[in-house]
């Protein structure tokens, strides 16, 4: 039997067909989010609590060798040899059916993925406005989103409350596009982060583009952000310029690495990450990217390239899942050698996390898995939140603090 992470990889690339008995089920017709390109996916819980997001109803998914079925009230994934793997299906949360006081459907403000609520209050990306959107991203032609007014802090708070009250999410994840400003967009996000920290005892992760000045990274931490990503996506400079012109031209590859390096000195180990897409550059180059990141204490998160129907790269072939195993094995080993904490980045349906990469390295990483289960428990997650707060209290000082001592 394939390991659940090998299966996750297959499902990410090929998607899944739905058995006849499921085609009409509401849970498989999740609403399309303005920002989130994964909303046509279904979220599955594979054995060993591996979370996987796989496309349904797309062109390639209709040819998938995998079929999701409900057999005797148990969801299973059936491959073309007839082998079945029992899985769980995460139903869309109830709050998707509700609207904010201002009348916006809540799913347009935030979508839930394996315990975290993903929000983009800006609803637009500056690269798209400059005609330099990433070629794999649905933003490039999502005219409905371009120019839309940002979500208000109140709307975001309402949705976070709804998601938390329902128990659908535990953490908040801000994922925004490019801002043409020195702060990289953090000045825009700061009021949202601070409001969430003020009203909820939760962890906040942020995916944003690097600011021009590292002082903004310090402010990002001081404002209450617990985990931070500047996603480089592609290590090879030529491929980066080709597929992500905005990143290459308006920010520059080196700035991503410099900002990540600084962030890794400010945030706790394992909370600064960068996404790399496997399949848009040579596997060797991805491996080099992994090493470059781990050398500076940054966690690489590896997603597999998927040609989305609405993007320029719809005809670009995805990598064969079996060919990428060495890259994931390298990921596991590099993170291990760099002694980066692997516990924060878990349960990502869209990517393979370093702890999941153990299956490719042939290791069982028992200790990491045990600690991971502790972190998932109520008491464990409370401890993580408490420690995160304490660490920030100890580390962050305002300049005026140091000044006060000489007054009078």
């Amino acid at each position, binding site marked *: 039997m394939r390991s659940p992470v090998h299966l996750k990889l297959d499902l990410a690339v090929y998607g899944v067909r739905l058995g006849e008995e499921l085609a009409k089920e509401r849970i498989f017709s999740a609403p399309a989010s303005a920002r989130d390109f994964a909303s046509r996916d279904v979220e599955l819980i594979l054995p060993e609590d591996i979370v996987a997001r796989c496309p349904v109803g797309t062109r390639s998914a209709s040819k998938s060798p995998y079929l999701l079925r409900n057999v005797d009230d148990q969801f299973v994934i059936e491959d073309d040899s007839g082998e079945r793997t029992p899985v769980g299906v995460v139903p869309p949360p109830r709050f998707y059916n509700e609207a904010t006081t201002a009348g916006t459907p809540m799913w347009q403000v935030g979508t839930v993925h394996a315990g975290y609520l993903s929000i983009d209050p800006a609803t637009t990306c500056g690269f798209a406005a400059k005609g330099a959107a990433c070629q794999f991203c649905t933003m490039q032609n999502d005219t409905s989103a371009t120019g839309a007014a940002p979500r208000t802090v109140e709307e975001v708070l309402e949705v976070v409350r709804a998601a938390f009250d329902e128990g659908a999410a535990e953490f908040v994840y801000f994922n925004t596009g490019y801002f043409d400003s020195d702060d990289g967009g953090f000045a825009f996000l700061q009021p949202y982060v601070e409001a969430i920290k003020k009203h909820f005892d939760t962890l906040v992760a942020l995916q944003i583009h690097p600011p021009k000045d590292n*002082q903004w990274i*310090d*402010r990002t*931490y*001081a404002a209450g952000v617990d985990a931070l990503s500047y996603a480089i996506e592609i290590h090879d400079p030529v491929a980066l310029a080709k597929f992500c012109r905005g990143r290459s031209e308006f920010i520059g590859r080196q700035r991503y690495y410099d900002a990540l390096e600084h962030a890794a*000195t*400010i945030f706790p180990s394992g909370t600064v990450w960068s996404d790399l897409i496997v399949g848009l550059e040579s596997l060797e180059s991805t491996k080099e990217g992994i090493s470059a990141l781990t050398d500076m204490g940054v966690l690489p998160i590896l997603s597999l390239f998927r040609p989305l129907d609405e993007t320029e790269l719809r005809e670009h072939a995805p990598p064969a899942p079996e060919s990428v195993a060495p890259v994931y094995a390298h990921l596991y080993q590099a993170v291990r050698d760099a002694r980066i904490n692997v516990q924060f980045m878990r349960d990502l349906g869209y990517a393979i996390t370093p702890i999941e990469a153990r299956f490719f390295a042939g290791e069982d990483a028992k200790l990491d898995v045990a600690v991971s289960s502790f972190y998932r428990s109520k008491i464990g997650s409370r401890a993580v939140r408490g420690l995160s707060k304490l*660490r920030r209290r*100890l*580390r*962050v*000082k*305002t*300049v*005026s603090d*140091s*000044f*006060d*001592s*000489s*007054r*009078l």
Partner: protein
Amino acid sequence: MDVVVDTRPLWVILLSRSTRFLKIALGLFVYWAILAMDRPPDLPPEGQRALAVFGLCVIFWALNVIPLMITSLLAIILISWTGVMSHEEAFALFGNSAVFFILGAFILAACMMKSGLSTRMSLVFLQRFGHSPRTLLIAIFLLNAFMSFFMSEHAVAAMNFPIIAEIVAVLRLRPFRGNYAKALFIALAWGSTIGGVATLLGGGRAPLALAVLEQVTDETPYTFLSWMLHTLPVVLTMLFVGYLVITRWFPVDVASVKDAEVALAQKVHDLGRTTLEQRAIGLVMIATIGVWIVAGHELGLANVALAAVVLLFLLRLVEWRDVEEYVNWGIILMYGGAICLGKALAASGGALWLAESTVGAWAGSPTSVVAALSLATWLLTEAMSNSAVVALMMPVGLAIAENVGLAQSLIAPIIAVPAGLAFAFPIGTPANAIAYSSGYLRLRDLIFPGMLMGFVAWIVFNLAANFYWPLLGSALAG
């Protein structure tokens, strides 16, 4: 609000943060240990209790456990709770005229700043004299010194800082590179510091020292003018030495200050004509200083200050809102508590016992006592607030003076002047902290020349005390 993220290992941060609890514990321990020790027969019970409160306050002031003024309030509470003084007596010391003199001086300075008069003075002075790199440097140095003769040196440094920062920016001087920017910021800090010890207005140290002196000895031996006469040689010599040290340590390395001249001229032009309000405030200020010099003793320094304040309000030259914003109210609380503690220590016999049992055993001539007291005061003031140094050194100094036959009245300048001469560390005085905050100075740029300045100042001060003060009728032996 800019943030700094401390990236040292967490255990190091934890350790350094937990020192706060250790400091509190140390203060409480000292308090308890003094109360619990077997009382020597020559130490009265109230003296022992006053010493315990003093010990606690010294620790809290020196280690900055809580803000200085809150430690002062704690002193008042403890002095009355331990029965050293009744609480009526303790709180009545807030009514000391020195506190109101400082208040009046602050309000007058607030009016000058609010009306823009002080900024105008700075800009015009610098524009007039700052034509070459060297004259601009001298102008900044002297301007800060001169303004600190009649305004708190901290306010002067804070007020002139943006002007210097702009000069440095238009000259396109880079942080840490080259000397000129460093020289200008050090001139700002040292000028204010040296000028601050010249009169009773340069900071709260001198009035505080005089208040403690008055409470303990019932003497008010100094007029505005006589204080100035006592400090003048030190001030003038240190201005000269300061200029030499700055220009030798940081030789001028720019050829022209043309751009700064243009910028200053533009700023002066933007100010327009002197307003009626500014002229009137200037006149009131000059008149007040005149009355302080001529009749301060008869009319009372505090009375003159407050009368000037009343006049400014009568003429509607200032509003209460402006005063509230500019006055450092904390210092009023700090001084009330410090005066109370000084009085309690002296009246209870605690200070005398402390002096006899420590310094008394080895103290020799008045000259050596002056040298030791001024040295200790200078070293302490480099590391802690100079007001706190005055608060803790005055009662002890007065008792030592009584013990060795040194004129008690001289203890006020012996403590207050060196307490103002912190040249080396940002923590020593806000003027240094402000210069350091420019980002143009490395710590060592301040420390090494600063320690040299402090040492020279100590020698100059002792020479003045021994050879010049007797000419004013203030012989050391009382």
